Structure formats: C-alpha cells, structure tokens
C-alpha cells in the first residue's frame, strides 16, 4: 500500500491550525557510510497525528534505519523529512538532538533503562534534557515526580512499590513498562518503538500495547512501532510493510 493514500486518515476534530501530518518523508534516500550493500529509499511515508502505525518487514529491510532517519540520528542523502512541519535537514546536529528529546519518546527492544538509576530517575531522565517536556510533565499535576508516578500506575506498575527500586532489579516486562513511561512523560508528539514487545510473551504483548495506546491516545501521541510480528496488526490503525512498499519505488524514484 502506498503512503500517500493514508495521509488524511483518522483526523478527528482537530482544528485547522494544527499540523495534519506529524511526519512527512518524501523521496528519501539513505546509505550508511561504508556499507555499500544496503540502501534505503522511500518515496513517501506520512504519519498523522495520533495515528498508530505498525512498521513490518524482514530483517535488513531498513526498519531501524527508517527510525534513525525519523529521529534525526542520521540525515538522508536525498529527499526531505519534516517532523511537525520542521525540516530536519535545516537543523544542525545539536539542534536535532534537542528536537528529538522535545518531540520524541523512544522505546527499544530491551535494555531500555540505565541500570544504575532508580525506576523514577529513569522515567524522569528525558526531562533533564528538555525544558518543554519538563513543563508539560508538570502541567495539571503537583510535580514531575507525581506525573511519573501517575504514568507508572497507568502502565500497571505500583509506583509506591517500584519508584525507588534499582532499574536493574526489574523483570523484562516491568522494564518495558518503565521505558514506556519514560517515552510518554512530558507528552511528546511522536512515540517511536523498536520491537518493544519482542521480549514479552503474547499475553503480555497485548496488555502492554493496550496500556501504551491508551496513554498515547490521552496525550495525542502518534505511535510508530517496528515489529516482525504481524499478529499485532489488529491493534494498529495502519500497517506499513517496508519490503513491499519502498524497494520497488527506489528504482523509479528520480
């Protein structure tokens, strides 16, 4: 399926001033320096506000590379990536770093937490680097810590029990929930997750996604998740198969 077709989907009641697509990638080509065998080319990939997208594709099809491009970790050789109407190419490296923490929450496959920090310190970590998210996290609540407690609670971790605990002592499932709380704190516009559920069993996968999505919906956050697992598809608004979509278009791209 083509990315173009999806752009206008699921816009419910947003006012005109608001950005329609939070992410727009057009005609993007990228090759990792020194790795000739691999290249990524995307004709168009758009994500709407609050949209939940599942990005699937075999290993090596460039899912993680797409996320790196999206987060501004690497810049495309060609084409345009704009996030929240900001052209990433126009930002220098340090501005991209700042932009990332202001607008993205990120969850990895596993080992998301700094083992030497407590659970609560791990959740609060992005706020040390972003003023905007620090402000948003304290809106409508007494403190950023209270917000972190609320998020942990919403994700099914009793904050009173876990907050002070060392992150290294948690089970994998608990770690992923802490990572989700960290990604969501301060209501970033986009949540990027790289196979966050692959270390969980099926029952926990569903549960984790439900909790994650309900919090993301409450905050109006778009979710872009990479996975091998197509059985998760029903939970999402849209599935993008990277291997089907972009490779063919690479050749015809100008």
């Amino acid at each position, binding site marked *: 399926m083509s990315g173009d077709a999806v752009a206008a989907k699921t816009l419910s009641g947003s006012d005109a001033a608001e950005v329609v697509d939070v992410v727009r990638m057009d005609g993007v080509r990228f090759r990792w320096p020194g790795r000739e065998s691999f290249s990524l080319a995307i004709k168009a990939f758009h994500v709407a506000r609050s949209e939940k997208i599942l990005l699937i594709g075999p290993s090596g099809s460039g899912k993680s590379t797409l996320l790196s491009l999206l987060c501004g970790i690497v810049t495309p050789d060609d084409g345009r990536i704009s996030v929240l109407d900001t052209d990433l190419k126009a930002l220098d490296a340090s501005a991209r770093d700042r932009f990332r923490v202001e607008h993205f929450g990120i969850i990895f496959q596993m080992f998301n937490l700094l083992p030497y920090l407590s659970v609560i310190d791990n959740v609060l970590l992005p706020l040390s*680097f972003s003023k905007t998210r620090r402000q948003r996290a304290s809106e409508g609540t007494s403190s950023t810590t209270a917000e972190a407690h609320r998020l942990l609670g919403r994700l099914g971790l009793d904050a009173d029990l876990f907050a002070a605990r060392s992150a290294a002592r948690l089970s994998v499932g608990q770690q992923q929930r802490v990572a989700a709380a960290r990604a969501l704190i301060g209501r970033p516009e986009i949540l990027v997750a790289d196979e966050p559920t692959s270390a969980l069993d099926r029952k926990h996968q569903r549960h984790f996604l439900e909790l994650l999505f309900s919090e993301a919906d409450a905050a109006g956050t778009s979710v872009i998740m990479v996975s091998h697992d197509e059985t998760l598809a029903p939970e999402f608004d849209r599935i993008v198969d990277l291997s089907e979509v972009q490779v063919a278009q690479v050749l015809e791209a100008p």
Partner: protein
Amino acid sequence: MIILRLAWKSLMNRWVTAVLTVLAIAVSVMLLLGVEKVRTGAKNSFANTISGTDLIIGARSGDLQLLLYSVFRIGNATNNMTYESYQDIAANEAIDWIVPLSLGDSHRGFRVMGTTTSYFEHYRYRRDRKLTFADGQPFDDLFDAVIGSDVAAALDYQLGDPIIVAHGLGDVGFAEHDDKPFVVAGILDKTGTPVDRTVHVSLEAIEAIHVDWQSGAQIPGQAVSAEEVRTMNLTPKAITAAFVGLKSKLSTFKLQRGINQYAEEPLSAILPGAALQQLWSLIGTAETALAAVSIMVVITALLGMVTMVLATLNERRREMAILRSVGARPRTVLGLLVAEAGLLGFLGAILGVVLLYLALLIVRPLVDATYGLYLDIDWLTSRELFYLLAVISVGLLAGLLPAIHAYRLSLADGMMVRT
C-alpha cells in the same frame, strides 16, 4: 549537574572496579608525593648537616674539598694550617667562637677527630640542634674519647671501653697508637650527620699520640709512655681546619676575604651553606631518577584507569544509546566519560594525599631514628600541588581517549544498538 550525577551513579554501580582504580591512583600519587617529600627531606637534612657555623677555615684548597674533609670526613687535607695562624684568626674581634679540628687518624674505619670541648657547644645541625649525649659527657681526661652513635652501634661500645687509635685512615692500621689507648667517656645521640661516624678526642690527645712519631712511624728508642706524655707541652703545631662563628653575619664576607688573602700562609675560608648547595647539585642526580620512577608509577595508574574505562565501553554502548534517545548529545556522552575519569583521578589524588600524611605520621619517627632523615610534615608545597593538579589533568586527558571513542561509537550507532 546532570552529567556529574550520572557519572557518579554510574561509578557507584561499578564500585569495586572504581574503588580499585581510585586506590591505584591514590597509591601512585602517594608515591609521587612521598618521593618528593623524601627528596626535600634529604636535601634539607643534607643542607643542615652543619648549621650555625659561618665560615670553615683550612689550608688553601677548593671549597668542596675543604667541606668534604672538615664536615663529611671524606678524603684528606692536602695541607694543614699552622696553630699560629689559628690563634691569630681566633684573636680577630669579629669572631664569636672558633673550634679547631685535627684529622688524620682513624679507629676501625671511623675517623678520629681532635677538637676542643667547645665543639660540643657550638656545632649545630638541622638549623639549631645541639649535639646531645646519650651517655657520658665531653672528654675531660687527655685520653678520653667521645664517640658518635653509629660508632657506638657498629662496634658495640659502652662507656669505659678502650679505643686504640690507628695512624692513618686504613680500616686495618699497620701502625697503631697502642701504647696510648683511649677510653670511651661519652656517646652522642644520633644526628644523621657525619658526627655519628666520628671518634672525638681532645686536640692535645692528637698531639700526645704523635709526640714520639715522625713521618708516619714511631721513632725507635724514643717511645714516650702515656704517663710521661701528660707532663709535656701538648700545644699542637698544626690543625686541619676550624669552624668559625661570627658575632655579626655582616662581617662574614669581610673576614672571608681577609682569610683568603692571609699573608702568613695560604688559607681558604668557605661559607658552609654555599658549599653544601654546590655539593648537593653534584650528587642530586639521584633525585631525578627517583622522580622519574614515581612519574612512571603515576602513568601506570592512569593507564590502568583508561583500561578500565575502555574495557567497560563496549557494554556501555547500550547506555550511550539510551542517553542519546532521551536527548543527550554526543557531547554529553563525551562529558559523562570524561567526568568519570575526572572523578576517579580527583578522588585518587585526594585519597593519595590522605594516605601520604598517614604514612608520614607513622614512618617519620622511624626514619628519623634509623637514617637521621627528618621529614617535615607541612602542608603541600606549591610544587606538590602542581604535581596533584597535573595528575588530575592527565586523568581528565586520559579519560578523553575512551570518551572520544565512545563519542564516535555513539555517532555511528545512533540509538539503534542491538544487543
């Protein structure tokens, strides 16, 4: 400071390695500063071998030679000075006190020095310390001897033990003054100076044992017994050198010039402080070697630190990725690692100083008693502070090495590291 906080917590998480690294740095810092302390201590002790003496006078020779034989009892005087000259100079009104020295004989490897009892009053070492007696008193009888602490310890002498002086300086004297034995009348306390290795007798005694000698051998058939010699005039004809104290330091150079230009016979007068400095600069190369060794130890410890930071780097790529995902810039990651190295270096330096002073407190009385080496316990000198700062800065620089590596990794990995 988020960076310092993270660095601290990360170190605490690996506290065993961190503590060991800090210890390694601390021990090396302690060694570096310890060597420095011993060096200045040795230099001070050396410079204070003789103090309170304004001039040393002897027959004309080089400054060092005069210093060596009169103070360190090393080598020989090429010439003596006459007793007339000595008395003439002693009469100079600028002079507060003067102590004659007569060298040339030995006792089982230790020098025998003829002098007067004023030697025990006026000789000063380590700025203002007087010679003190562990046992007995200054020589009183013609054949009394006062021995230094090393002599007493090496030969196991007690008060009242007999001493036979050998003519000349060989350990095994062929010619011994065995007809006129001495008796140990006093034993001095340890000073850490050549006094410890000297047998002191009266100037008259030196004259007495040589009264029937000529050209290094007893004159056959003219032996004078120990009893007979007491009745003779024992005013010496010559002495080897003299220590001089002046009423006013201001007259030092005037008197020195006067003595150097003394018309009756060629004499030299030297300033002991200046000559000691000159001598130290000759033998001071050993200190450079010591300093070089301790600097190598510090480098080893810092290399150990770099190794530790580097060794953990691979497993910490994940940590870097997490930090980058929450908005830390590569610069912050760099700062984190440098801060860790800086913390290790800083803590190591502080602990090293603490260890140094603890060690000094424990070791000082031992070193003083055994080697006569007095170690000052003052606050760090500016030179030592400079060493400390250097260690900390080199630590930071050393931390930069793995940090730059991590910086590159985190740029290349982005945040999509898989483990």
